[in-house]
């Protein structure tokens, strides 16, 4: 349980230079989530095209973990089928709650984020962007989908 352990190089890289981050115009923001513990905030815009998550953009400010988590998630998710992304987000939430084991193959660089699960107070930081993306694609892909409630 060492800082180097939690803040792995890949996580720090993404925190310093997050992908897909930039100013979103108010009308572009689909979902705006906040972590009440620390005031961290993630705004998301996600386009869905032909059943795939076509383009993701983030805005907001946060700690290294929440920023890197958003950046790594975007890398992983962009271009994948909506259903696969949904399932992945659900499974990842289970991993963070300790109900599923992190799987290096399924996670790739996201392994660095999964390490946060040993720090209960920070789990919300790691999952904030995931919740936001999930809500954004639910809105865009299938506003009437039964599991978007």
């Amino acid at each position: 349980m060492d800082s180097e352990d939690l803040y792995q190089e890949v996580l720090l890289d993404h925190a310093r230079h997050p992908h897909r981050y930039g100013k979103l115009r108010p009308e572009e923001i689909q979902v705006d989530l906040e972590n009440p513990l620390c005031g961290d905030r993630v705004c998301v815009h996600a386009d869905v095209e032909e059943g795939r998550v076509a383009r993701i953009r983030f805005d907001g400010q946060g700690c290294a973990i929440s920023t890197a988590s958003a950046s790594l998630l975007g890398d992983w998710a962009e271009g994948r089928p909506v259903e696969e992304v949904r399932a992945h987000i659900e499974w990842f939430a289970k991993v963070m709650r300790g109900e599923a084991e992190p799987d290096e193959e399924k996670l790739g660089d996201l392994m660095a984020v999964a390490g946060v699960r040993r720090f209960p107070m920070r789990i919300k930081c790691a999952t904030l962007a995931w919740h936001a993306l999930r809500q954004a694609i639910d809105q865009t892909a299938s506003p009437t989908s039964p599991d978007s409630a």
Partner: protein
Amino acid sequence: MEEIRQDFPILHEPTPGGGRLVYLDNAATSQKPRSVIDALQDYYETTNANVHRGVHVLAEKATQAYEDARIKVAEFIGAPDPRSVIFTRGTTEAINLVAWSWARPRLRPGDRIVVTRMEHHSNFVPWQAMARAAGAELVIADIRDDGTLDPDAFQRALDGPVKLVALAHVSNVLGTVNPVADLVARAREAGAVTVVDGAQGTPHVPVDVEAIGCDFYALSGHKMLGPTGSGALYGRLERLEAMEPFLYGGEMISKVHDDHSTWAEIPHKFEAGTPHIAGAIGLGEAVDYLRRLGPDRVHRWESDLATYTAARLREVPGVRVFGDLPERGGAVSFVTEGIHPHDLAQYLDQLGIAIRAGHLCAQPLLRRLGVTAVSRASVAFYNTAEEIGLLVDGLHRARSFFLRG
């Protein structure tokens, strides 16, 4: 100093990293001396009984110890009569008691409640809620850039139908020690009832409620060496006597008829149900400990150490310390360019240094400071300059860790 530190068992626990704990989160809750921990154990092993109702020896001992604790707390804050001290879970419950019992039935549409920009949520949200429920107005007196209350803003806020003024004795974010006696005098002149949030007062500065002149003073036992779940509300006798109860139930009644009831005398009128007996007794023990040290000495030491902390932190590149103050409670808040406060707290934790990060239950203030989160180191009398050195070293290490590359 080593002698004092010996009194606090937790300071000698090894941290997960194997080092010694550097506890700089005292504004959140203080650590407890051996004498307080022992008083709790002793209570449960030799005295435990419900209070006020029994005639057997345990009930008598428990009642006596509980009421003795009330006397100790009263003396500690300069309250002339122990009946003016009501035991609560902490500052939050104490302030809510005033909000519900004093303010709610007395607030009228158009009335004004004045708070300051530096209030903790516990001395802000209750007043906001009461104002909204009554159609009254909540006016927030601003601070100056140095972290002190703006006296002109405060005076302007008082210029109106102000019914109640609620303000912190000491800020939990900035460390500001407000000139409460002066502010209360001005509020009273304006016709207001005054509530002082002493959560950061009693642990850090000498308190004399008569000299302050306030109507109510709220405090938290767990922040002043006492057990969790302990705290108190001081209220002027005539205010307390005029108030309807807040919680109803056992102990607070005089007579229960089928269709109405009458209330016990103060303070019991406000202590419905079985109180946190061990907590009150432990708080009394904590007061004894603080009196042995001397509140003046405690304040001088902590104010100096916090001032030193602020100065040392300012030397670190990229660090911005909030509050430029001649005198301080224990708290020093800051931000570090390029490192989020939570990441900093997490990193320092791995070095065995406990500080706090976040909005510190003061979102209205943080908006004014232009940040959503800060880091806070808050000292107690058992902290040392050497520990502040470790904090500063840790901050340097954090910078090279997070800002490299």
